[in-house]
């Protein structure tokens, strides 16, 4: 059987692929030094500086490449932290049920009742703002409950399937059963959740850095660059424009991937 690949999925993969390649290239090579201040102040976009230059005469394209790398890596590590912990909690509570399930899910309800961005700010203020790891920890913690809930529902619905009972009767251990046999069957729900989580992480990290309590210099992140660019709007609006559009397309691309996966799942049903 040949499955038709969803158009949104392809479009999303192309957009994300282009950005990802640019980020990887940017790790090793940028057209100009992202920190050198010698290319002339406020040069509008041109063939030599495609995104123009900023108030210090730095090449914005090179800075966006570096900044996108920081934002991407923080968002990815955040969502991985949230997904790993959430899957572990969801798998155990969903599969075994019982008292631990009740307690954790009530706790989950209480935490998700709170606006997630506010919760992240609260955690940041508790562990100390302004460091890369504090962004990852605070956002990662905030993402655990939603993953736990999604995965719990999956595991709870799969635990009485025949293949699971069969494997259990054959003496497969719990750990192997949960993560080797059941995990692949949760992917159709896990992957869209992962893309949504990633996008929320990009936006949350950018917001926090924009507010000055996320990533701070010398690390450049897109959010921090936007807050820098805001002060130069009158003289060099292209700085804000290109930095912002990079965030938009990063989120848009991954959003299309998630949408495509969900549509494909529906077509299979």
């Amino acid at each position: 059987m040949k499955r038709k690949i969803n158009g949104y999925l392809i479009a999303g993969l192309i957009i994300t692929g282009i950005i990802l390649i640019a980020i990887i290239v940017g790790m090793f090579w940028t057209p100009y030094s992202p920190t050198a201040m010698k290319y002339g102040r406020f040069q509008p976009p041109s063939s030599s500086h495609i995104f123009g230059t900023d108030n210090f005469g730095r090449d914005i394209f090179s800075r966006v490449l570096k900044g996108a790398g920081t934002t991407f890596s923080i968002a990815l590590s955040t969502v991985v932290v949230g997904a790993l912990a959430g899957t572990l909690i969801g798998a155990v509570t969903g599969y075994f049920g019982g008292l631990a399930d009740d307690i954790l899910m009530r706790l989950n309800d209480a935490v998700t009742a709170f606006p997630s961005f506010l919760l992240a700010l609260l955690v940041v203020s508790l562990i100390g703002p302004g460091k890369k790891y504090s962004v990852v920890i605070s956002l990662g913690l905030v993402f655990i409950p939603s993953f736990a809930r999604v995965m719990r529902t999956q595991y709870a619905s799969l635990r009485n399937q025949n293949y699971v009972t069969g494997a259990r009767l054959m003496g497969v251990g719990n750990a192997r059963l949960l993560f080797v046999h059941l995990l692949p069957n949760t992917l159709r729900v896990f992957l869209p959740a992962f893309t949504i989580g990633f996008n929320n992480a990009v936006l949350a990290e950018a917001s926090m850095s924009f507010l000055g309590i996320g990533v701070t210099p010398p690390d450049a992140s897109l959010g921090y660059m936007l807050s820098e660019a805001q002060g130069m709007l009158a003289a060099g609006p292209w700085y804000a424009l290109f930095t912002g559009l990079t965030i938009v397309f990063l989120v848009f691309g991954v959003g299309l991937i998630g949408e495509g996966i969900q549509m494909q799942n529906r077509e299979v049903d």
Partner: protein
Amino acid sequence: MRESLQFILKRIFLLLVTMILVSFLTFLAFELVSGDPARTMLGTEATAEQLSALRQELGLDKPFMVRYIQWLGGFFSGNLGISYIYRQPVWDLIASKLELTLLLSLMSFVLIAVISIPLGIFSYRLTGGFWDWPRTALNQLCMAVPPFFTGILVSWEFGIILRLFTPGDFPSLHADFTRALQHLFFGAVCLSIPRIAMTVRMMRATVISEMNKAYVRTAISRGNDRHSVLTRHVLKNAMVPVVTFLGQTLAELVGAGIVVEQVLGIPGMGRFLVTSISHRDYPVVQAIVVILAFWVVTVGTVADLINQFIDPRLRASGLSGRLGGAAG
């Protein structure tokens, strides 16, 4: 009627329990990290006598539970403690800011509710036709635009080029109400764009799944046309998850508004929260967090109560398995 009264009372009781729980956890969390406030306020030069005098003045010499209960009592009588940085009562510092934040949230909430419900139905109508893919793409694109980027674009276009408002300079709400409201309106627009997209997407999905139900098939097979089935029967049922979602949105808006306040220079509570976090002014952070948490659980409870009136079946099923005002 008795049933719904019972439900409302139960809901309010749970609301109070959640509020106490949230305030206790917040108080505990800040207790663990804040160190010695007296030393923070007086600096390292202070003598032991000065320190103990201030501790006594702030009530820090009392045990934890006593302080929590005093703090909670003070909270409900309008005494939220003293800021470490400004040495002023927290309530005096945040009262006018709270007003702006709530006004901003409510304005964007109205925009979201008024625009996204008709747009959600329209979006359902586009499903399956030629306009299906532009609809999906536009929807995803709007969700991808962060409010602080829209805020920057708005302050560039309307502030710097058209000079409709001055981004950094917010007029006092009481001195110049119309201009302040106009400024807030720009913020509300930025805040609502991605949320309108989310609500539309959610509403469309709900209408689709509702239209596939048996009662719709029955109604159509009895000769009703799809349009009247949609407006007379389906919409009412589809509103329940939408109301829950909108309640959650109203709660989330106070968090999301922080960034917009920052971009457009609106001196609201979110902005003050951020500066207080950077200055480690814990009494202020604590008070704002608890106020916003109370707002969130109250909104969640109201959304749940509205749903009881839209769909009486929910009343029979009790609390729909949710703790406190969880608006999820």
